[in-house]
């Protein structure tokens, strides 16, 4: 490493613009100067990538905090396993299915089937290192899967959930994302979704919605008499930590989606995105806080957390163009959506343990539709088209997968196991074995 360093030092020097002496030789050999933009762009992907990676931990903590203690080990297991699965499936199939370049299997609709490769010399003309792009894009794929685990918590067996994750991260997400980010038909149509309110968040939300309906609610969640029985989360400190983690990761999620840092304009854009993203989250949190106080005469922390996340999801479709004030009201409406939609789902007897559907699907819809307010060229019609198209695809496709899993291996544990808790019943391992739950 240190020895390596010496070399590095040299190469750095050579790369560095010339000291008087070397200058001529350099010129003589016409040594191509370093393309700093290539380095900046790559760096943006890597920083953005590790920030979005961190969101996987955020989802894990948020969900572990919002489930009952008897299902915490299972929720943690699902979250770390789904990330690992995404990392492998996206390499095996997803990446080239999503970014086929000119290798479409069906033009604009179905990408290429081949394994991702990142080795080899840097492709300067691409403007960034392939590996950094793969690393960054992979994190988005994993995020989509993280959304699903929360909604279905406490009542789906481990393996069917993981198998669904395989399909989602290997095929469903890459296909619908290719339509836009892969340069497919949606991008041709002029759809606009900067960092994925629809392509990532609503997509995960649709998969979760299909699952929640097919899976059914947790035992005892809804009484025959229609009463809703809350099942409070077991650890709100974890849930809050998870939200802070997601908020932090979102700077990478939206900021690095600028995809370039090599010019003053790009740097300026990334800066604006960071500031707008933060503002939308803050506004979502405040809106949710005020609304719960108004509706229930008390602040509900879990709603406040959902509100911040809904604000983030809402700004994700267009974090660059709005003013800070724009980010504020777009985010605030996101927060209001979270507070309003959570009980609506309960009325519809759809059991969404962590509120992922209001936050990612509904606020994602809002964010997508809000783009035209600030982004030139975007039209409400096209935005709606894109959202609906992806919605139908995801609902149908994931329903098929869920039904097959239900028919073959079954989705739910036995009633007794569910009552006992998945930790003891399926994993034989409690998350807090010493604490009386």
């Amino acid at each position, binding site marked *: 490493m240190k020895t390596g360093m010496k070399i590095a030092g040299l190469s750095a020097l050579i790369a560095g613009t010339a000291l008087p002496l070397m200058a001529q030789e350099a010129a003589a050999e016409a040594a191509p100067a370093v393309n700093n933009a290539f380095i900046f762009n790559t760096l943006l992907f890597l920083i953005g990538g590790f920030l979005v990676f961190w969101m996987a931990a955020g989802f894990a903590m948020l969900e572990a905090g919002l489930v009952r203690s008897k299902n915490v080990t299972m929720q943690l297991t699902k979250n770390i396993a789904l990330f690992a699965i995404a990392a492998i499936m996206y390499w095996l199939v997803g990446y080239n299915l999503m970014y086929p370049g000119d290798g479409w299997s069906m033009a604009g609709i179905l990408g290429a089937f081949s394994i991702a490769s990142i080795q080899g010399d840097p492709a300067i003309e691409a403007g960034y290192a392939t590996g950094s792009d793969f690393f960054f894009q992979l994190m988005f794929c994993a995020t989509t899967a993280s959304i699903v685990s929360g909604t279905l918590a406490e009542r789906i067996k481990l393996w069917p959930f993981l198998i669904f994750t395989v399909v989602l991260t290997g095929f469903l997400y890459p296909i619908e994302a290719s339509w836009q980010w892969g340069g497919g038909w949606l991008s041709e149509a002029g759809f606009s979704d900067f960092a994925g309110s629809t392509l990532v968040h609503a997509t995960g939300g649709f998969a979760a919605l299909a699952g929640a309906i097919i899976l059914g609610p947790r035992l005892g969640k809804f009484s025959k008499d229609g009463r*809703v*029985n*809350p099942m*409070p989360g077991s650890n709100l400190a974890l849930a809050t930590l998870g939200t802070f983690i997601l908020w932090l990761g979102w700077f990478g999620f939206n900021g690095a989606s600028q995809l370039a840092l090599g010019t003053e304009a790009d740097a300026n854009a990334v800066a604006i995105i960071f500031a707008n993203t933060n503002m939308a989250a803050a506004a979502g949190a405040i809106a949710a806080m005020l609304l719960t106080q108004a*509706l*229930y005469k*008390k602040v*509900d922390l*879990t*709603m406040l957390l959902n509100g911040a996340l809904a604000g983030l999801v809402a700004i994700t479709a267009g974090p660059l163009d709005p003013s800070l004030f724009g980010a504020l009201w777009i985010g605030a409406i996101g927060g209001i959506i979270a*507070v309003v939609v*959570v*009980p609506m789902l*309960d009325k519809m007897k759809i059991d969404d343990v962590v*509120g992922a559907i209001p936050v990612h699907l509904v606020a994602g819809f809002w964010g997508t539709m809000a783009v035209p307010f600030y982004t030139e060229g975007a039209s409400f019609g096209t935005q709606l088209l894109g959202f609906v198209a992806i919605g139908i695809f995801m609902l149908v496709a994931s329903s098929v997968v869920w039904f097959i899993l239900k028919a073959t291996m079954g989705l739910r544990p036995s009633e007794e196991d569910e009552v006992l808790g998945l930790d003891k019943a399926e994993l034989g391992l409690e998350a807090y074995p010493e604490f009386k739950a």
Partner: protein
Amino acid sequence: MRRAGSARETVVKLIIAAIKPFKLEEVREALTTLGVRGMMVTEIKGFGSQSGHTEIYRGAEYAVNFVPKMRLEIVVTDALAEAAVETIAATAKTGKIGDGKIFVLDVAQALRVRTGEINDDAL
């Protein structure tokens, strides 16, 4: 060791009391002054007339049927029993609903593990 007594011979009393948690320290001090030298304390969920207020979580109402209480078990000599009961009653009382209950049972035998002393000497 003496034969564990039949119900007929009552040697000492077991006082079981459910009180409001924040009263625990006060009650403990009062009992100590009275001469009680030990007790067992358990955190319990209490159900009673106080129970049943409703809370809201994520927009849904639900009834809270159990309220946290402290359960005290104190074994005392027959002689001390009455005073102990009165002391607990006096100290734990706030006059508000949920103050709790006191129950007195007969103990057939008491034993101190460390010394093997029994009954009155065990306390």
